[in-house]
């Protein structure tokens, strides 16, 4: 087909759904539906998982989301956990056939700042990925425009602490403001009851646990019985109405993909 190829690494399925939705709903990309024979861009075959039966059979293996338009095909590789984007993905890229890796026109990472300074986080990743992409930038949100464009976006906005859900809540406040307000009220009420013990609230009490709970609360209304990932993928967190909230992420994606 003569397309260009871009690979994005993200930390979790929420991030994967989020970037996928931006590409589809706001930038006009189509989505690969999962039929192997329909995979036009064979470069991504390396990322299709093959079960090792001697390993943990319940462990979910990563299958990237693949999105494309006439000019470019983008694979969103998701790897959770401490080792995901710092050890596993670099290892996988190192072992990849050099000719395929060199065929990439763009490589990007999307990570959470959490409670750290975005600049400090990016320094770590830059040192790791510069062995593969020598011009990988050390500034959050910056796109290096060499032969292979590279960059790293730190949620929420490359400057402040936070996570993906921080942006999603801002989107939610634009799209479903009252519902978000009710969700926040609900969580405040739950938090103030004496029913839930310390162990019950362990996850909620973690940094940004409340933000995750707000999104989950909304997701339980928008997609009852389904996960946050499904809601992010299907509902209007990302939409034309929230484009202005997402301008930084959109700018980064357009720049790195040369859209």
């Amino acid at each position, binding site marked *: 087909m003569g397309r260009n190829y871009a690979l994005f690494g993200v930390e979790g399925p929420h991030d994967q759904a989020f970037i996928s939705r931006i590409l589809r709903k706001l930038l006009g990309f189509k989505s690969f539906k999962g039929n192997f024979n329909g995979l036009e861009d064979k470069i991504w075959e390396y990322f299709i998982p*093959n079960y090792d039966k001697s390993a943990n059979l319940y462990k979910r293996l990563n299958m990237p989301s693949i999105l494309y338009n006439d000019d470019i095909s983008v694979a969103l590789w998701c790897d959770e956990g401490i080792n995901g984007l710092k050890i596993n993905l670099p290892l996988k890229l190192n072992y990849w056939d050099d000719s395929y890796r060199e065929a990439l026109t763009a490589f990007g990472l999307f990570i959470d700042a959490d409670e750290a300074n975005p600049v400090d986080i990016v320094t770590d990743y830059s040192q790791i990925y510069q062995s593969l992409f020598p011009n990988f930038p050390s500034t959050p949100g910056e796109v290096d425009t060499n032969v292979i464009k590279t960059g790293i976006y730190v949620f929420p906005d490359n400057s402040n602490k936070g996570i993906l859900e921080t942006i999603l809540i801002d989107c939610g406040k634009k799209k479903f403001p009252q519902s978000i307000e009710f969700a926040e009220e609900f969580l405040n009420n739950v938090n103030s009851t004496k029913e839930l013990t310390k162990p019950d609230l362990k996850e909620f009490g973690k940094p940004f646990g409340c933000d995750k709970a707000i999104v989950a609360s909304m997701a339980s209304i928008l997609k009852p019985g389904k996960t946050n990932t499904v809601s992010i993928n299907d509902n209007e967190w990302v939409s034309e109405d929230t484009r202005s909230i997402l301008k930084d992420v959109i700018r980064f994606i357009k720049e790195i993909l040369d859209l």
Partner: protein
Amino acid sequence: MKKQLEEITIHSFRGIKDLELSGLGRINLIVGPNNSGKTSILEAISYYCNPMNPIKIYEIADRIGVSNYRKNQESLKWLFPHPDRSKDYPYFYGEIEITSSGKYEVFKATASLERRQIIYGYNEKIEQGVDNNRLVPGQETLTGSELNLSSFVSRPGLKSINNINQDTNEFHAKFVFRDNKDYQHDPDKGYHHLPCNLLSPSMTHNTDDYFVEKLSETIKNNGIQYLMDVLKILDPDITDIEIMDTRARVYIKDKKNDFSPIGIYGDGVKRGILFALNLSLIPGGIFLIDEIESSLHTTVLQKVFTWLVSSCKKLGIQLFTTTHSLEAIDAILTATRQSKKTDIVIYRLKKDKDGTTSAKRLDTENLSILRNELGSEVR
């Protein structure tokens, strides 16, 4: 504990040029597309383990199987890199060169092959017996090949070797082969070498004589238990194996039948027999297996490879094997991880556009991450 081969570089051998395999493990997997040179690497190592033995080189060359007619010469030349021949000397086939580091005393071996139109007159000493006929100068034009073998050893004087200066660390020998004549080799002069066996998938079709010979040696070397262990994995009903009848053939006994000739058993059982017979004869040496998964059903892979890895460890054998099978890779990886202090390394070959061969290496830990955690394709 230092391995026989810690690193090997194939500078030139058949189509391989300047391929370095560093950080070799106890178990070494070689993977890659068809025609990337996997079998050639095994052949190169096989030669390197016996660099001064022309018969071994012919055995390697014969596996290429160019033709039966004049097979000695035709097969042999295709081991060599065939450089661009100069106008002055079109009959030189190039030089094989391999170097290594490790416990093995040989650190470099070379071989060169030249075609000769007129070889030697009867006054000239023929280095190795070509045949018993004396050559009469001028009466006939002879054609043949001259094979020059050299090995370089890191510890000179290690052994007492006939006709070799014990102070030297270089050994050279020339062998002459006339076309269409059987080669008669002098007994081994005690050159440095490593015990080594190369097993290819087609060997399950070897003659009965081959199995009898190997089984006899195995029994003499107290290796029969290895054989019985793997046979029971492949067929739990098998209870015994012997050489029997007036023609000396190998027979296998199982619980349902009395002794039956080995020929009626499937390739899987024969493959297991070949594993055991070959490895038990090369303690401390190198075992080379081409397409390790060949003839083995998926349900026995794990048990067979666990046995194989454990046996290699017990016998101090370093294993090099090629495979196309992800199941085989997973099974060997699991077997290696279960065996303490046994490491596995995988090399994935690629033929580059300029014809050179390169390899990507993964050690035990990284191979485990790619396979166990990521389900990643590693072939």
